[in-house]
């Protein structure tokens, strides 16, 4: 080395000082201490939301990614929507509609003067184009099934530029609510891609933001992979507030990518983010509540989640799990497990009280569809032991643990999701509870891909997992309830129902889906739930409360139990500038 080492050391020290100054410039502005202002909305400003993943594209017709759906909510618009706070069907691009006498055909009248974000007028041709793309076999849309009735496509026609008729292939209980979530895409932008067979690739991530044209309240202006997506106000957005002023209120929304939930919460606490992607965890509630009491945050209880995890059994005929342990597939065994587990203990220890005990797959979050008087087996260890004896398990060797008829220990495994603390803790509580009645349980944890892979190959005894509801109407749950459904998890994809009770549930489910009378639909679905509670192919223990935390300056939020809990209503969000420390970013 040339030169004096002393000089090098001096240079290095200068470097340290320089780097320190560089870090210091990273410091955030003083943390906010804002109070929630009244709900008088103001225009302008920007909000920052975090999300745990980023979209692989901007076209929700060809992706089921949750992040793509958030982009849809911000940049696109549907003909009608189900208000996630009230559950009511609302007019959007279709201002009004009338049904035919048989209830199969609906005539929708589009709003006048609606324009895409590039200024092009929206017409019925765009509606027809969207349905063409949706059902095009070459597009192979992953969501097409959501917009089919009885496995058949809706028939869409455009008598004139402002009118659309939609004909259902069969009676359909929820009616036009089926259109919720279907964005009306710009034929003038995506038409050539559909014609040339490149529709799937047209709006992949990396596509210039300016080409993503929509009818939603915001426009995508930037996507920096791994960092953020920035959306700015769409001046052509059609909707107005109660005072007749054009929405949205905000100038911009920034979606920052934070893959880890602790990092998200840290962003919220530090004031660097206003909204986080999901409900907060029970363990975060006390600390965030203290921040809320100081005025920096708002904590809102949105209600009971429609999503509840459950323990399902491998009831596939000839499954390896039950070949040598037939008792695993008996109804008595499942009922015994349901009675052996103290649900309140799970509510108290796993959810820290932020949940309610649950006895079926439909939670109180489903409103009218929830059956409050389902059979609720009490936590009764003696009754559980009697049922286990009925299933052929007894303590043959007197070691306190049960054995089967061949003398082999009564042992099975619960496969659950690694890294999902609620699921892992619940599995541990179940393990402990079942030990009390003499059952040995092994817990296996796996990432979702491995878990799904093992589920698909039937390589499991039981699985403790959960699925996300996209809608509150049970018609969206066909994949779970119908014996042919892929999420009929205990025995999926049956060619025809393999048990009489599954055949009956199929029948009830089909009836409720095709009945137009809502009260009758509720009755039919309740009967299906009661049958489920008797057979217990899947045991549910608790349904969590959905607690939403936001910065104190977020105005206009109507938190929902469905995801995304706040951004679904982005056009109504505003910055409460009356709150102290609420500068724009």
């Amino acid at each position: 080395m040339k030169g004096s080492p002393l000089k090098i050391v001096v240079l290095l020290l200068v470097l340290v000082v320089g780097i320190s100054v560089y870090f210091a410039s990273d410091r955030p502005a003083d943390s906010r201490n804002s109070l929630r202002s009244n709900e008088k909305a103001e225009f302008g400003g920007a909000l920052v939301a975090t999300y745990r993943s980023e979209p692989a594209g901007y076209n929700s017709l060809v992706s089921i990614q949750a992040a793509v759906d958030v982009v849809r909510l911000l940049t696109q618009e549907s003909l009608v929507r189900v208000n996630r706070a009230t559950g009511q069907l609302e007019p959007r691009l279709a201002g009004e509609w009338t049904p035919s006498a048989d209830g199969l055909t609906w005539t929708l009248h589009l709003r006048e003067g609606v324009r895409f974000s590039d200024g092009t007028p929206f017409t019925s041709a765009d509606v027809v184009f969207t349905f063409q793309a949706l059902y095009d076999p070459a597009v192979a849309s992953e969501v097409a099934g959501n917009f089919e009735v009885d496995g058949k496509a809706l028939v869409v026609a455009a008598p004139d530029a402002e009118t659309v008729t939609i004909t259902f292939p069969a009676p359909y209980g929820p009616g036009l609510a089926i259109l919720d979530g279907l964005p009306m895409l710009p034929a003038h932008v995506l038409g050539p891609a559909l014609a040339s067979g490149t529709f799937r690739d047209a709006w992949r991530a990396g596509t210039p933001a300016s080409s993503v044209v929509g009818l939603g309240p915001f426009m995508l202006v930037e996507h920096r992979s791994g960092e953020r997506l920035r959306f700015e106000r769409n001046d052509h957005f059609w909707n107005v507030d109660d005072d007749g002023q054009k929405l949205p209120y905000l100038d911009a929304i920034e979606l920052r990518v934070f893959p880890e939930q602790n990092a998200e919460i840290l962003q919220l606490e530090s004031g660097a983010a206003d909204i986080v992607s999901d409900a907060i965890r029970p363990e975060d509630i006390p600390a965030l509540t203290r921040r809320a009491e100081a005025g920096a945050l708002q904590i809102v209880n949105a209600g009971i989640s429609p999503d509840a995890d459950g323990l399902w059994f491998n009831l596939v005929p000839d499954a390896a799990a039950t070949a040598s342990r037939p008792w695993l597939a008996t109804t008595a065994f499942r009922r015994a497990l349901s009675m052996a587990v103290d649900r309140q203990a799970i509510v108290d220890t796993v959810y820290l009280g932020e949940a309610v005990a649950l006895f079926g797959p439909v939670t109180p979050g489903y409103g009218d569809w929830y059956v409050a008087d389902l059979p609720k087996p009490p936590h009764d260890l003696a009754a559980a032991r009697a049922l286990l004896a009925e299933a052929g398990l007894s303590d043959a060797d007197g070691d306190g643990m049960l054995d089967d008829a061949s003398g082999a220990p009564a042992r099975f495994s619960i496969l659950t999701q690694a890294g999902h603390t609620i699921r892992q803790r619940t599995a541990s509580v179940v393990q402990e509870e079942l030990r009390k009645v003499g059952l040995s349980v092994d817990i296996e944890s796996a990432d979702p891909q491995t878990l799904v892979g093992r589920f698909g190959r039937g390589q499991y005894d039981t699985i403790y997992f959960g699925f996300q509801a996209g809608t509150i109407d049970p018609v969206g749950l066909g994949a779970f309830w119908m014996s042919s459904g892929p999420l009929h998890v205990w025995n999926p994809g049956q060619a025809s129902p393999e048990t009489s009770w599954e055949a009956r549930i199929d029948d009830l489910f089909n009836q409720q889906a095709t009945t137009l009378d809502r009260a009758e639909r509720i009755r039919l679905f309740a009967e299906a739930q009661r049958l489920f509670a008797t057979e217990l192919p899947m045991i549910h223990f608790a349904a969590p409360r959905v607690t939403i935390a936001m910065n104190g300056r977020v105005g206009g939020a109507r938190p929902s139990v469905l995801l995304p809990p706040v951004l679904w209503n982005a056009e109504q969000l505003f910055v409460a500038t009356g709150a102290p420390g609420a500068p724009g970013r």
Partner: protein
Amino acid sequence: MTPGLAVFLVRRLLAGVLFVFVVSLSALTLASLSPGDATAELAIAGADAETLAAARARLGLDRSPAEQVAAWVAGLSHFDMGQSSRFGRPVSTLVFERALQTGRLAALALLLATAIGLPLGILTGSRPGGGLAGVVAPVSVALVSVPPLVGALGLLLLAATTGWLSVAQGALGVPTLALALPIAAMLERLQSQATREAMAAPDLVAAAARGVPAHRLVWRHAARQSLRPVLGIYGLVIGGLFSGSLAVEFVTSWPGLGRLMYDALVARDLPLIAGCALCGAVLIALGNAVADVMRAVVDPRARSAS
């Protein structure tokens, strides 16, 4: 360049290419053999068998692992690393963007670690029984033994509670320190040891006896002699930086190669896993090569040893 050095460089280049190829192929093969695939999210959403089959065919997952690996190698021969299913973008673009971010973080961390570790090592090594050495040595030992993940979490907690460092997105403080501090500690320990040995060498003892001032002995002579063994460790340091960045980038949400690799593994995005492994292996191979060349330049014995 001498013939010996040229042969040495060619050998190192070939070994580097082989290393990169083996690492990438191993990552791709292991990932394709593990249970589950990139369609899991679709399956959890309730997609029917037909939709899942179409998605698998589109992603090339309906082929055997051997065929998938062969297709990847064939694509690589014309610099096509495939398309990421998770991000919907070309793997080469994603990997390049994120490698730049990781490179930025790693370079800053390396500079910081060097700037802290070497001077401190010279100071503590020149006065082994001094007060500074008594304080620095246990701190260094503790920092060396802290895994980057734990260090990053600790720094995040410190940043959040004190406000000394920003936790905002893109803030460099926490991730840089999380990567730099263990390396600085390691460099300090090595430099301290090397300085002690240099100070005990006969020529420096004689110089001291002749009345050469202590600061001149330390900063001009001992420092120069002791830097040589420390240089050799930089290859390992660069490798450690990239492996450490996986945990640090995830915890601190830094959009670099480590986080991209994590996302790819979680999503079973095979082309992206292979692309990240390839890029990481290239960077580690380059780091090792640079360190080897530096050693070979300053110490001819290293060439013959290689």
